[in-house]
């Protein structure tokens, strides 16, 4: 399958099979090499930490570069000065400059100098600057990021688990009714636009609320104002969270479903799975312990690279459901020519991607014996 190639990340499936058969051969000689094995294991663990550390540093570098490039891009397209146009009484050019200069947003200062001012503040004081009208980016992002992270990470986890579970379920029932129905549904839901899905869910939820005669689901806001106590707060959060998460899951689960199904089907008839069956494992056990483990690796890599898509989806769902998270901030900062805010959002998106990538790296380390050895 051609599109599957995008997720397979040029891993050689033949190598994987060889690796597995190698493990089967080794197991018979394992008893007499206990001590050597332990020493080997220790070396493996330090290698592993080094590997993860190297990946972590790589991502950190990527985030820094991405944030800086966005800074220059933002300056090319946004003009903080235009926030003061049309003020009454009108401000002169010098007055605006005087307002903007202490905020490090005045275009009278050379760009390199502005950049260094901004960058050194982040490095030395963890201060992401202020908007053109003087709001601190730090305080804005600090509470908004949790609202968005709640949505993005929750949706990512549910999407991945649901998609993989469906993929495994349908792959072991290839071409049966459940598989056909599942596949047809997934092809349709995968290609529904997130905007349409979210608004459709809003309509359905309003209908449901009318039917029940109570506000079971809230279609606006991320939480209610006057709720106290632990359980009421959790319940209230769930009432708000359900619909946007549902929208993100609805358009997102299908890609994991189809990918997992294809990959598992590729592996289900492989030699090492037949060996496992021959050793006396049931079909379910053989799939779970051998075929699934191999086929999960490319899916885990895929999860990292869909996080930006889910973040984009979250921007749209936040707008639809009236959440005051990073999505709303995204619209505000672009509308108000807030250079520092835009850059902070870019950094947030990059961090989300990196978190996803590192998590998927850890998952790959847990799943893929080749990574642990080399």
């Amino acid at each position, binding site marked *: 399958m051609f599109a599957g190639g995008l997720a397979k990340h040029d891993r050689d499936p033949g190598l994987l099979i060889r690796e597995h058969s190698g493990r089967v051969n080794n197991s018979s000689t394992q008893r007499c090499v206990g001590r050597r094995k332990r020493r080997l294991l220790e070396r493996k663990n330090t290698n592993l930490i080094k590997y993860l550390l190297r990946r972590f540093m790589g991502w950190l570098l990527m985030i820094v570069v991405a944030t800086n490039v966005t800074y220059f*891009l933002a300056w090319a397209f946004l003009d903080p000065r235009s926030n003061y146009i049309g003020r009454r009484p009108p401000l002169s050019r010098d007055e605006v400059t005087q307002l903007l200069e202490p905020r490090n947003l005045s275009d009278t200062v050379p760009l390199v100098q502005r950049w260094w001012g901004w960058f050194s503040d982040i490095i030395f004081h963890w201060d992401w600057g202020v908007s053109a009208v003087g709001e601190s980016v730090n305080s804005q992002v600090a509470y908004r990021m949790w609202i968005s992270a709640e949505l993005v990470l929750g949706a990512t986890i549910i999407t991945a688990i649901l998609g993989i579970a469906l993929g495994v379920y349908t792959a072991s029932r290839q071409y049966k009714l459940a598989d056909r129905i599942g596949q047809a549904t997934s092809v349709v839901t995968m290609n529904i*636009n997130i*905007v*349409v899905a979210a*608004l459709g869910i809003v309509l359905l939820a309003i209908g449901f609320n009318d039917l029940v005669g109570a506000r079971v689901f809230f279609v606006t806001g991320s939480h209610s104002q006057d709720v106290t106590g632990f359980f009421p707060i959790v319940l209230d959060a769930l009432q708000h969270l359900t619909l946007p998460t549902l929208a993100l899951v609805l358009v997102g689960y299908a890609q994991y479903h189809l990918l997992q199904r294809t990959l598992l089907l590729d592996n289900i008839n492989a030699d090492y799975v037949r060996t496992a069956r021959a050793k006396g494992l049931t079909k379910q056990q053989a799939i779970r312990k051998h075929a699934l483990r191999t086929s999960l690796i490319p899916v885990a890599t895929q999860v990292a690279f869909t996080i930006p898509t889910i973040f984009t989806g979250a921007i*749209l769902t936040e707008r639809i459901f009236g959440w005051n998270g990073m999505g709303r901030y995204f619209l505000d900062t*672009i509308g108000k020519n807030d250079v520092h805010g835009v850059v902070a959002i*870019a950094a947030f998106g990059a961090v989300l991607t990196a978190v996803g990538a590192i998590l998927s790296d850890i998952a790959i380390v847990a799943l893929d014996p080749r990574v642990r050895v080399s």
Partner: protein
Amino acid sequence: MSTDQIQPPVGPDTTAARIPRKRMSLWSLYTRRFVRNRPAVAGIFIFILLVLFSVIAPFFAKYDHIELDFLNLSSPPSSEHWFGTTSAGNDTFAQVAIGLQRSLMIAVSVSVGTTILSAIVGTAAAYFGGLIERGILLVIHFLMVIPTFLILALISNDAGGDWRVISLILILTGWFFPARVIWTMALPLRESEYVNAARYMGVPGMKIVMRHLIPNIGSLLVINFALGVVTAVMAETGLSFLGFGVKIPDVSLGSLIGYGANTITSAPWLFYFPAGALTLLTVSMALVADGLRDALDPTSAAGGQA
């Protein structure tokens, strides 16, 4: 078309001549494999209907998409206004037709652009290898990290709603993912004999890329094109919905849904019709892409003999 005649037995004791079989042309093979995928046929049927609707509907619509009917503000679908009207008195039928046209134009031009750009960059990276490959891959991985949607919004907001500028930006931010896939697919081609032969003949590098590598991943490019249309429609809709894309008086499906979203309980028809058109467009195009994969990809597990 192949005949279903039974061939005479072949062996040392018989001299019977084999019945000559007509060779199947490439196109009839493709068509046959495509038609076997029933959802794909339905998809292309729906897609053609949508294209026809977007082209023909403006001619027999009673109202222009900019024209305001002050006697019908926010009126539900009727015989006068088939899809109802907006609160300003715009005819939704004409708006949906024009919006669909605009969305299609953006989607097709973006998909053509990204396919060409990603094909050239991806295969060039695979062919030249070394420093060029590493540089290109670095750029691709870097673009995967930065939230491209933000860059898109930044630039297209500045563009003032011109659909040509929006398409150009969508191309510039959309090429890298397909380029990564194409790079992976083109890697084995670099080692193939005909590429080596061309190199030893002294054919210049870029010429080998254009003449040997790209034609050999042609089927992948066709599939990428169909999928690219879906991606572009999605991106454009998101942008226009937020108000960063196509702007008044021009309309696209995304901006129409954006206006409809504000009155979703009081005037739901403003949401239903553009959302329906959009969903039909993306789902049908995805089905077509699936059928194309069955038809063109020799490794496809579509089954059947042809």
